[in-house]
């Protein structure tokens, strides 16, 4: 039986983990490679790196981080942040990423998903969608860290990128991100039910019950969290044990 994935996400800026990772005694709490290796050892199902200050000038540091991680971690690695073109995808895949995530570039031009999927296969193309509730039962895409509305309906957009060949959707509830109050479950369920591809729920996890709800009520195929793992609030093993106890199949 296919297992529900738990994915720790590391925000990386200029080759360093933002705010650090403190759940184990790492030699260097700010080194994304050390952190990824520790999560691999702890039983994470995948790792996600998000380059939050991606610019043309500092790209090299992220490539170096990805290359070193791929040499040491033998679980899937997704990389996102500042990905705009098919060439950006190629460069990250060559560096050692397994999947590459588009975000605002796909909002500006959904065809970039099709071009990338045609070239490299859907299996390595993720589309990140940042959405907020604008009225009950309606969610809109926001860009620029949730500050800029686009007027684009999130469910319709999810269907569009799935049809263009995205292999997976990384859905972040922008009205929940950082609140520790749980995923936006109606949004998550609306999108997970609207597309045939897997949806990763993200944004708002504060408790282990939130992870469970993302799957049982949000219908997500995977759950992504950052701070609850980085700060040692919960371990990956505790998260998996809690989900298993709730009847969700996990890899233990």
């Amino acid at each position, binding site marked *: 039986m296919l*297992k529900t994935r738990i994915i720790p996400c590391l925000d990386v800026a200029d080759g360093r983990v933002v705010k650090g990772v403190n759940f184990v005694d790492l030699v260097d709490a700010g080194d994304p490679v050390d952190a990824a290796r520790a999560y691999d050892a702890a039983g994470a*199902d995948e790792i996600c790196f998000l380059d939050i200050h991606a610019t043309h000038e500092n790209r090299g540091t992220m490539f170096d981080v990805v290359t070193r991680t791929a040499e040491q971690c033998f679980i*899937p690695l997704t990389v996102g942040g500042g990905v705009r073109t098919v060439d950006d995808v190629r460069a990250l*895949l060559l560096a050692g990423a*397994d999947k590459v995530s588009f975000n605002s570039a796909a909002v500006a031009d959904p065809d970039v998903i099709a071009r990338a999927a045609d070239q490299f*296969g859907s*299996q*390595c193309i993720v589309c990140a969608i940042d959405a907020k509730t604008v009225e009950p039962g309606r969610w809109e895409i926001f860009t620029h860290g949730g500050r800029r509305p686009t007027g684009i309906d999130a469910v319709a957009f999810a269907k569009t990128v799935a049809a263009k060949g995205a292999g997976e959707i990384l859905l972040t509830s922008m009205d929940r991100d950082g609140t520790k109050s749980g995923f936006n479950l109606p949004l998550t369920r609306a999108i997970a039910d609207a597309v045939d591809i897997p949806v990763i729920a993200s944004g708002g996890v504060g408790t282990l019950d939130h992870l469970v709800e993302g799957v049982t009520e949000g219908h997500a*195929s995977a759950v992504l969290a950052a701070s609850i793992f980085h700060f040692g609030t919960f371990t990956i093993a505790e998260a998996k044990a809690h989900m298993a106890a709730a009847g969700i199949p996990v890899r233990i």
Partner: protein
Amino acid sequence: MLTAIIDYESGNLHSAEKAFQKMAQETGSGTVVVTDKAEIVARADRIVLPGDGAFPACASALRASGCFDAMIEAVESRGRPFLGICVGMQLMARRGHEYEPTDGLGWVDGEVRRIEPRDAALKVPHMGWNDLQIEQSHPVLDGISSGEHVYFVHSYQMVMDDPAQRIASCDYGGAVTAVVGHGTRIGFQFHPEKSASVGMQMIANFLRWRP
């Protein structure tokens, strides 16, 4: 001892290269190279055929590659141990049915068809960790038990004409072929290079395999 991972421009070989190199070092199994050169494939002791993407594109890229004839010769005439991974495994089939019917290598009695889970709630691609049901013992699965997890990402699967050539499967709204093979040839639908310690064990087993 030389293991050649065939590069025919169908996907990212970085992780596979690093994983095989790490396990070759740990098992004292010589060197691992990623290559598109016929002369290197011709003198390789073991051959790994990876593959990501669509079956017809991979099949035509493989046939067009300069090392195709050397690979066929090494595997068919000289019995060099062969491992296909993901679409590299699917290419072992007689035929694929992704977009259009396309001939495979004909090394396994099966055809590659779209996954159609009986439960409509199951997504395609089949993406993530699934547990193996080992149906036949095989030296490349030494130390691996049914119930252990490996990482899959695929939308098509090998449907076997000859169940005797299926070595392991997993459940995804019905049995999905996970490991196939006979003689000196074996194929994994999943990615051993992304399957943590279980996958690394299988890579080590392949590097030590003397069929």
